[in-house]
């Protein structure tokens, strides 16, 4: 290959590259449709345009029947550009790059021996690109990992998916760390020998970059594991709740042991009974008097509102009023009964309360009537009680106990 040919090749490459890159812009809409869905829609594309896209390997047709799809490289490029973490690839591919670097270093040496400086320059350029690519791939991968971490894997919604994504990310970290471990600086030192330019590029510069990547990867790994623990914790809580609820539904009669009777009561079940710290006003300290009297003054006076005549309404007897009225009527009837006893004034002729109830055609329930008669007697002042004789007609409620029932009460005047 002569010196004259090479720049020509280069300019041809540049022309083609520019043409093909501009295809990306011209058909951006269709291509993004192809990215978002499975296939690139053909309606918007002319035959020529499709042919060009196929020739540039921007799209391809996996087989005769299938539609046109984005090539993996283009898909990856878009994923990188829009930081689409669900599809971004992490691929450091160190082994291959190392191969490339070794062969480039050899070519560089040979050019140097031949004195072919232009060629040597080209090899060095490609070598630089190879080293930058490798470091850049690590940087991209680490960036993608951080993005996923910082969003708590927000690009998937279900917890189970998050756990899987986290797992995948952790495996990627391991692969990246394995990739870093492949780079053997002793080998590189031997490879570059005494060449100052190579030494700077392949040893000092690369070493510094890789050690930064290593630190980042360790940090990412640490954080991923922490996040995973949190995800697992959430998962286990959900399972626990679902599992226990299902168990209790299936076993409605389930009763665990009485932990409160164990010699060692488990801490969780030892909850002391509540205790209220009550306090009351006390006057035994002189300095409190002022405060207490102030408090007393602050108590609102009971409101006795003046009932204005204009606001008066027809009376409405409430439930309570009704009950009170009945109670009053009962009391009056019982008093009439007592007066009846006094009026009859036939000593030793007690009058039965029940008989009176029937003959007077009163409608009181017998039990309530008797109760009120007895209550009335007990409510009398002691001096007046002595004026009456009250006899309770009792019977045993059952042969098995001592409960006695009052069947009637007979009242007479004591002479």
């Amino acid at each position: 290959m002569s010196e004259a040919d090479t720049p020509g090749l280069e300019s041809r490459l540049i022309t083609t590259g520019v043409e093909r890159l501009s295809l990306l812009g011209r058909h951006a809409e269709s291509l993004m449709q192809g990215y978002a869905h499975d296939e690139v829609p053909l309606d918007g594309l002319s035959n020529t345009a499709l042919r060009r896209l196929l020739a540039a390997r921007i799209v391809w047709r996996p087989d005769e029947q299938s539609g046109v799809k984005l090539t993996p490289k283009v898909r990856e490029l878009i994923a990188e550009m829009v930081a689409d973490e669900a599809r971004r690839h992490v691929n450091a591919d160190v082994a291959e790059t190392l191969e490339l670097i070794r062969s480039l270093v050899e070519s560089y040496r040979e050019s140097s021996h031949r004195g072919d400086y232009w060629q040597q320059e080209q090899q060095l350029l490609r070598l630089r690109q190879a080293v930058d690519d490798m470091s850049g791939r690590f940087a991209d991968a680490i960036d993608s990992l951080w993005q996923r971490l910082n969003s708590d894997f927000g690009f998937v919604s279900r917890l189970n998916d998050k756990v899987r994504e986290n797992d995948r990310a952790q495996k990627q970290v391991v692969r990246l760390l394995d990739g870093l471990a492949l780079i053997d600086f002793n080998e590189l030192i031997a490879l570059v020998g005494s060449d100052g330019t190579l030494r700077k590029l392949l040893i000092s510069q690369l070493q510094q970059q890789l050690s930064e990547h290593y630190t980042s990867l360790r940090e990412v790994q640490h954080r991923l594991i922490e996040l995973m623990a949190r995800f697992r914790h959430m998962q286990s809580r959900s399972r626990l709740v679902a599992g226990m609820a299902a168990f209790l539904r299936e076993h409605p009669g389930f009763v665990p042991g009485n932990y409160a009777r164990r010699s060692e009561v488990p801490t969780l079940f030892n909850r002391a009974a509540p205790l209220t710290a009550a306090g009351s006003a006390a006057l035994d300290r002189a300095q409190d008097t002022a405060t207490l009297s102030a408090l007393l003054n602050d108590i609102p006076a009971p409101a006795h509102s003046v009932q204005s005549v204009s606001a008066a309404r027809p009376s409405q007897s409430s439930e309570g009023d009704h009950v009170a009225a009945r109670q009053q009527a009962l009391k009056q009837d019982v008093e009439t009964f007592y007066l009846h006893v006094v009026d009859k004034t036939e000593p030793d002729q007690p009058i039965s309360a029940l008989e009176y109830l029937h003959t007077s055609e009163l409608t009181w329930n017998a039990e309530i009537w008797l109760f009120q008669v007895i209550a009335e007697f007990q409510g009398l002042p002691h001096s007046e009680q002595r004026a009456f004789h009250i006899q309770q007609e009792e019977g045993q409620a059952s042969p098995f106990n001592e409960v006695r029932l009052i069947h009637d009460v007979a009242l007479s005047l004591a002479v």
Partner: protein
Amino acid sequence: MSDMNALSNGLLPHGPLLERLLAGEFICAVSDESAFQRLEDEDTREAIDDYLRPLNRRLASNPDASVYFLAWRQLDDSARDQLSRQLSDTLHSLLPVLEWLQLVQEALGRDSVLSPGDVLKPGELQAKSEDNPSLRERIERLATDSFFGSQSDQLDAQVKQVFKRLKEHGYLLQPHGERQVFLVTGKIDYLLDLVRFIRDEEHLPVDEQGEATQEALL
């Protein structure tokens, strides 16, 4: 100054906290953040424990120490009776509360069971279930459970009653009385710890770790 004075002066700022603990409340980072922070300090805990000694009580926490409460120091017969009654109350409430946790998780499309600090709005739950007959039915069944005890056949009253009961039991906190916004408290952690304990003690076939077995069955 005597030791007793030093002790009570040291506890002076903790008066309201002691009162809440004695009243049987659970103290967590949600229910009282500053009190909780103080309880994280071992010296404070010891001082409070000393104070509680004559009351036959001590400070206790769940295994993660995310919630504090008072335990009996010495267990006499009456304390054991009280604990037995409490245990049976807790068991009675277990299924309704667990079912409610599941229901909220599903209704609101959440990844995980409610955790302390989560915000809940009864209105949101109600809105989600209005157009969802199966959810509606589950809320009804839950609300009329004797633990929640709703008498109503109206969805909004049922949801309200459920939240009210959970608030009474300390699982929820309503920071502003007039606003229908609730916070989940650390007592939920305590409940899950209880569940875990019962599962382990009774060797119940309730799986916590088994990855994806249920999904596989589905």
